[in-house]
């Protein structure tokens, strides 16, 4: 999507793909958006969506092995729309459409709900997922703050 104006603020943050950083990413995004005075609900929605994307990178992209990096980037535009991108260089998704189906999970432990993408879609205006097996995955979330 071509934007008429450049972003007024950008964020670029690389973190280890370890689960303790799920909370760190939520706090980073919260701090980044704070200056825009999002509503309590908007902030909660965005933090939850980011948490899902980061968790996917750790659990699926890097298979919980703890080796790898997550790149969290974000831009705020003058019209108060926000784009947040979570990238990993993990195993990639062979069938993105299948992965995005609610309740679909490749997990066998019985502890993953398969709701990650459904939650991301529910809490953002738009979601794009691109992935290449063996190369990695990029999830971009868009939300226009009121």
């Amino acid at each position, binding site marked *: 999507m071509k934007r008429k104006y450049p972003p007024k603020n950008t964020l670029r943050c690389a973190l280890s793909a370890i689960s303790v950083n*799920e*909370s760190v990413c939520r706090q980073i995004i919260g701090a980044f958006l704070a200056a825009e005075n999002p509503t309590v609900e908007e902030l909660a929605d965005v933090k939850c969506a980011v948490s899902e994307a980061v*968790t996917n990178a750790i659990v699926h992209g890097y298979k919980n092995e703890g080796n790898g990096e997550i790149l969290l980037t974000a831009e705020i535009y003058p019209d108060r729309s926000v784009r947040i991108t979570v990238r990993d260089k993990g195993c990639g998704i062979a069938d993105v459409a299948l992965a995005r189906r609610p309740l679909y999970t490749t997990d066998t432990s*019985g*502890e993953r709900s398969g709701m990650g993408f459904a*939650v991301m879609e*529910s809490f953002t205006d738009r979601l794009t997922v691109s992935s290449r097996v063996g190369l990695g995955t990029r999830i971009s979330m868009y939300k226009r703050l009121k």
Partner: protein
Amino acid sequence: MLTRENIALTLRLEDGALIAEMRGEIDHHTARLLREEIDRRIYLEMPRLLTLEMSGISFMDSSGIGLIVGRLERMRSLGGALEIRGLSPRLKALLDLSGVERLPSLTVNRSIAEDSAT
């Protein structure tokens, strides 16, 4: 008992029911800690009911749904049930998104006593 930076868990037994009171955030990271501690107590005490007291939960993503579903399966395998109390409207909506609350042996935000009286 479990206390970390952003999650605290206290467990107590009351009339054959194991009550797990959680305060803080439930994500994939903390769900793992909660799961291990709760399951350890379940197999120790073999309760007929597991109550998740969640009024102190300030954040939960779909890992929390997984935690709930996993514990429900544990309790059902023991012939027991799971009760959730204190779920905020926002988190209740998240649970509704998953359809989990329609599963048998699970009650959400209603007391078991109320259910048996009707």
